[in-house]
């Protein structure tokens, strides 16, 4: 039910992001989804890739600081109010969303949104009880 996300520490310097994508590209790793959080000094690049272990290895080899986070991939109906529905379920139980970003790819008629929660188990539980589909890791990497 959990998806492994790679995060990479980036200094705000020209070419750093390009370097990450180049390293991954050369290793034949496909980026499935990404988000970039930035501050004036540094950024955190968060990635879902098709080969987690390999990506981690090649990035570490190139000297990047790499972290691993477990996130949740949630199926969200691609229509007005779709995301709102999911967020309301979580808000009602006090689960906090640390951050979220959308998958580039659709899954059928639905959008896929990546969530980082403060309480991951509780969030999965709540959403599943409401009949919301949570993707398995393998499904996401292959999406």
């Amino acid at each position, binding site marked *: 039910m959990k998806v492994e*996300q790679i*995060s990479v*520490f*980036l*200094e705000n310097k020209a070419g*750093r992001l390009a370097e990450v994508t180049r390293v991954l590209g050369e290793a034949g790793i496909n980026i499935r989804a990404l988000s970039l*959080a930035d*501050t004036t*000094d*540094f950024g*955190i690049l*968060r990635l879902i890739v098709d080969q987690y272990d390999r990506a981690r290895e090649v990035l570490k080899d190139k*000297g*990047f*600081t*790499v*972290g691993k*986070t477990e996130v949740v991939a949630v199926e969200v109906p691609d229509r007005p109010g779709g995301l709102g529905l999911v967020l309301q379920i979580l808000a009602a139980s006090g689960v906090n969303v*640390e*951050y979220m970003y959308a998958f580039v790819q659709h899954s059928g008629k639905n959008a896929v949104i990546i969530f*980082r929660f403060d309480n991951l188990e509780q969030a999965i539980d709540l959403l599943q009880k409401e009949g919301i589909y949570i993707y398995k890791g393998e499904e996401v990497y292959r999406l």
Partner: protein
Amino acid sequence: MIRDVEHEAMPREDLEALQLRRLQAVVERVYHLVPFYRRRMDEMGVKPGHIRTLEDIRLLPLTVKQDLRDNYPFGMFAAPMDQIVRLHASSGTTGKPTPVAYTQRDLETWAELMARSLAAGGAHRGDIVHVSYGYGLFTGGLGVHYGAERLGAAVIPVSGGQTRRQIMLIQDFGPTVICCTPSFALYLAEVGQEMGVDFAKTKLRVGVLGAEPWTEGMRAEIEKRLSLDALDIYGLSEILGPGVAVECLEAKAGLHMFEDHFLPEIINPTTLEPLAPGETGELVITTLTKEAFPLLRYRTRDLTSLNYAPCICGRTMARISRFQGRSDDMLIIRGVNVFPSQIESVLMETPGVAPHYQLIVDRDGQLDTLEVQVEVDEGAFSDEVKQLQALAQGIQRKIKDYFTVSVKVKLVEPQSIPRSEGKAKRVIDKRPH
């Protein structure tokens, strides 16, 4: 282990008597052989005969680096060239280097004191000593080299650079002792880690590290990563080179100065008044036995304090505390004195930041700014911005609390701060002068 019990563990009373005899002799010598000292002493109305007690040293002139420059190149030598067998020079970062000279007896003394230093770290005949200090005009390499040979140890004179090759030699030749700068020791650890080397499996037992100030935190890091005991050694080319003072393995608490050859004082660097034992100030050293290049009351610019308390190792020689910086390394940021070593000590007690840092001093309008660049390692990295910002702010707050100076902490990628293979360059001062 004490190599020379007779001298290193001499009762203080006897030691002071020996120091006085030697001080009187060196003052006599420089008065007659070095025109610079004769002129100074005449101006002050001091004659060699005025030195009747050790306290009378305060009658003598202080010597500063500029005096050596003014007498460039050989004006301070107290021996003719036919008695001099070696020249070295200080790493003059500004302008010309400062040459120093040694007679055959000076070299013997140096080798002996360096052998004492290695012995203080437990080194002995049968050990293999890996010397990564630079060989050449810099006193580090050759100084340690001859001391290790004097001790009867085998020397690997590898000098600086070629880090990966050095690690290969450490694995294959099995040195038990390593001598280098603390920043190079850390760099070895880091490159070794990249190469997948487990230093616990090498034969390294002790590191005798010096030539730059470092902190207890850095010691802990080096000891853990290289799996050895790390000891601080002190020396400066003007006084001798490495082997002026060293920590003992037993206490690791301050560096024993070889007082039978050097007479230390601590002075207030501003008023030049003497300070009491335990008080921190500038270290001033008089060489008691040097023939070719004797110096009276040389201002080292190194800030430390003297401790005359007996040591568990049995040495009676006074200890200088771990250096708190150099009076000329001191940064004045908006009127507050800051030493790089103070910032380092804050970083070392912050989990998750690598022991590599750089201080960037600049000026924004009329205001000095200090940026502390710190590498983020995996332990501290988070996928959440707020956590990383909290890390940076935590360091900022600590520095502010301890030293009342506001800094900006910038987290940078690993390996982005240049690594040193010699002395680390900790400060980049971009302020217009």
